[in-house]
């Protein structure tokens, strides 16, 4: 329950391309600020500032590991991503269910001289 999504803050957090890139990179696993800063032409404080916006929105969370503080996607962000993949899957699956019916109605020998396997 500590991972609460602030919907308005989340949408405005997602509007920034750097923050979108940070979320996409965290989608493949936990990363520290230093690791996150590396591919961006940005200082660590600038990345930390973006992370604060994402944390305040409830999209990113962190844990303490000795002196490290790795960040990961918060559960609402993971759920939103899964929800979207599910929506995409459902939309495509509707097409493939129709394709099942089209295939069932196709004559396999049409045009191709009836090659049997």
């Amino acid at each position, binding site marked *: 329950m500590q991972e609460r*999504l602030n*919907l308005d803050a*989340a*949408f405005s957090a*997602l509007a920034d*391309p750097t923050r*979108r*890139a940070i*979320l*996409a*990179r965290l*989608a*493949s696993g936990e990363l520290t600020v230093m690791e996150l800063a590396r591919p961006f032409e940005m200082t660590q404080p600038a990345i930390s500032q973006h992370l604060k916006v994402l944390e305040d929105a409830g*999209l990113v969370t962190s844990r303490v590991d000795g002196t490290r503080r790795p960040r990961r996607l918060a559960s*609402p*962000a993971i*759920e*939103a*991503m*899964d*929800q*979207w*993949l599910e*929506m*995409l*899957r459902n*939309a*495509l*699956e*509707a*097409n*493939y269910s*129709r*394709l*099942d*019916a*089209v*295939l*069932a109605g*196709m004559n*396999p020998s049409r045009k*191709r001289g009836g090659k049997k*396997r």
Partner: protein
Amino acid sequence: MSKLTLKTEGDTHIVGTRRFAAPPEAVYRAHTEAELIQKWLLGPDGWTMPVCINEAKPGGKFRYEWRNSKGEGFHITGEFLELKPFSRIVHVERMFLPERTPDNHVETTFEAEGGGTLMTIRMTLPDEQTRAAMLATGMERGMEASYARLEGMI
């Protein structure tokens, strides 16, 4: 047959698999012959594909246009890079919604499997930033959908 699986892979890919009861030749033809494509590649209920141009040869182009009953529409254009009947299609496509989406490179393979077909679709987006933008847009859609569902429950 089996339902579609769909997952993200690496920094730039989305991979889907689906099994069909028909042999690869039939599934391949249903992806390359306009009169067959128009029967199934329709999206949500209420949409039709009045324009389906498909030149299924290397370097050939395709254009699909969809319309709904409210007169709304969008289209996809693409080019074929490789075609190996009845096992492999490689093409590039982009959508016009009407704004143009980044090019999506798509490899579709059809493998015979127990009298049926295993189809694998591997989509490659141009770069990490494009997929990041796509995932973020997806996250927004996901949140909107969860939120709408939550409102419906209250």
